[in-house]
């Protein structure tokens, strides 16, 4: 079994409208690509980042500071990838803007 790693990092919601349905879709879609368990924490609340429904219940506004918590074999990669998503404000990745480009990603 792969070695389990744990990472935590503070992230800021930079998308224009906060964690709306669209950023939540992108975030959950990305999180699901990793094996690790991925959570987002805010005081008194923890949600599963692979569940779009859960993410939405955060109702995180623009500027909100959240804690990203990742445990699992690919945690290091996951936390980098997801933190970068937060930093980019969940701009559509080339893969989404143009489905045909999907194969070239990575």
């Amino acid at each position: 079994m792969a070695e389990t790693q744990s990472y935590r990092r503070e992230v800021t919601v930079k998308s224009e409208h906060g964690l709306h349905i669209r950023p939540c879709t992108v975030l959950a879609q990305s999180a699901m690509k990793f094996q690790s368990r991925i959570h987002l924490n805010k005081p008194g609340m923890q949600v599963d980042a692979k569940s779009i429904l859960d993410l939405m219940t955060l109702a995180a506004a623009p500027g909100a500071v959240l804690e990203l918590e990742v445990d699992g074999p690919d945690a290091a990669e996951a936390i980098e990838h997801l933190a970068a998503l937060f930093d980019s404000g969940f701009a559509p990745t080339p893969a989404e803007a143009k489905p045909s480009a999907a194969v070239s990603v990575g």
Partner: protein
Amino acid sequence: MLIKRGIAVSPGVAIGPVLVLGAESFRIPQRFVSIDAVDAEISRFRSAVEAICQEIGDNERLASERLGAQYAAIFSAHLMLARDEKLVREIELLIREKSFSPEFAVSRVFRQYAKRFQALGDQYFADRAVDLYDLEKRLLKYLLGEKREELSHLTSPVLLLAHNLTPSETAALDKQFIMGFATEVGGETSHTAILAGALELPAVVGIGKFLADVSGGETIIIDGSHGTVIIDPDEDTLGKYRASEERYKSFSKRLESLRQLKSETQDGVPITLCGNIEFPQEAMTAAHRGAEGIGLYRTEFLYLESQREPTEEDHYQAYCEVLQAFPTQPVIIRTLDLGSDKMPGALKAEYPDEVNPALSVRSIRLSLQHLDLFKTQLRAILRAAVHGDLRVMFPLVSTLMEFRQARMILGDVVEDLEEQGIPFRKDVPVGMMVEVPSAAVLADEFAREVDFFSIGTNDLIQYTLGVDRGDPAVASLYRAGDPSILRLLRGVVTAARKHQISVSVCGQMSSDPMFLPLLIGMGIRQFSVTPQTIPELKEVIRNLTIAKAERIANRAETFDIARDVETFLRGELKKICPDSAP
């Protein structure tokens, strides 16, 4: 005992235990399942999720192709919501551990999340509850849709109550066990109502909300002649209705004996009674009832029956089947008469901004905007026409330009078939429905170019009076006897006569014996009617003389309100056939 009133759409009386169909209003029929059914129920839930994911995926692709990726985003969000593992786990847990039915569990979990969204104190997230309700609806529709199919596995007779029945559901009703039905929505001219008539099931539609007052298994009475549904009747009422059920049966037997008799007036003028059909399978039944042809074959079900557009072969086979029942008599095929809102799949999405379907892209307009679709149907018609007296008719023609265009396309198809050396008939008569007031007003101009008229009274009345019969709030304003309608009819008949083209009436109005003397008196000699009304109409015809009919028509045209016209006609009918329908 509780009495509910709706619109009587198919005569007869039925008494028996009730079966309530859920769906749409989302009354969940069964909240719990037995423990040994849990695995089966979970896999039923999973296939429902798979099915709706596929549906959403299709929408996503379509939106992305037609509208752009940004519009497709909402569907990818829906897809993520539907696939949400946590959500799926929670629902499955309720089914497994609490023996909830999938419907109940889905509704429970989705509503909990929706409530949480609404409680977040942020308008945006509160509004997202709508997305959850939408998904819940899709899932329930699918889950209950499966339940609905159990209708085909009935083992004892029931009366069916539902919020709504789609035409295909109605057509699929098992006549062995379904003795009658009643629905909350629907109008006299809805396809469901028309089908109920064809199936000869007593039916009442447009009752309004009433399903909450009934529980499954209760005894009810459906009186399809008077439009009443009686829930939990008392002994007196039951006795009265049992007697009327018997009377109705013997009345039907008497009509049966009329089937072989000629349809002509006392003074020997033949009146042609053809049948209206929706499915090719109905052609044979129509022939048995004594129909002298098919005056209106509504081809819509070819489009509605499956999710794909029908192929030329689908059309061809259907038309040939009808011709087998009527090898030498006229069979009039009406080209596609659907609104884009009713079209399956892709076409519907092409008109996202459609505000009022009745006044938008439908019928001939849809055909003229989608020539591939139109030509496919026309090719099949021309090809099938070699096997009998097939004729083609365009619906909803509102201007001469439209008719000319349609006729030109038909000409193109003729050329194509000629070039390809495919057998077909070239001289197929081309007619039109007169159902938009503009066509009735300009009947004289149309009659110069058209081979025959068929007056579609359902739409003609709807458009002339501006009333949707399916809307219970205004349904009572829909009156076939309105003097404006009589005047339009008179104009159309006069124009047809002047230009020596045939004119028939194919709307619901012609299936009502009350209007028959009036229409014959106006000079109409051909009717296309719901097949099972043929014997009854024949009885009226055989008791009538042309002189008498003309006197009735002339008098009816002197009244200035619908109520007076209809009261007069009802009185005359009683005189002609003192013991008409009970």
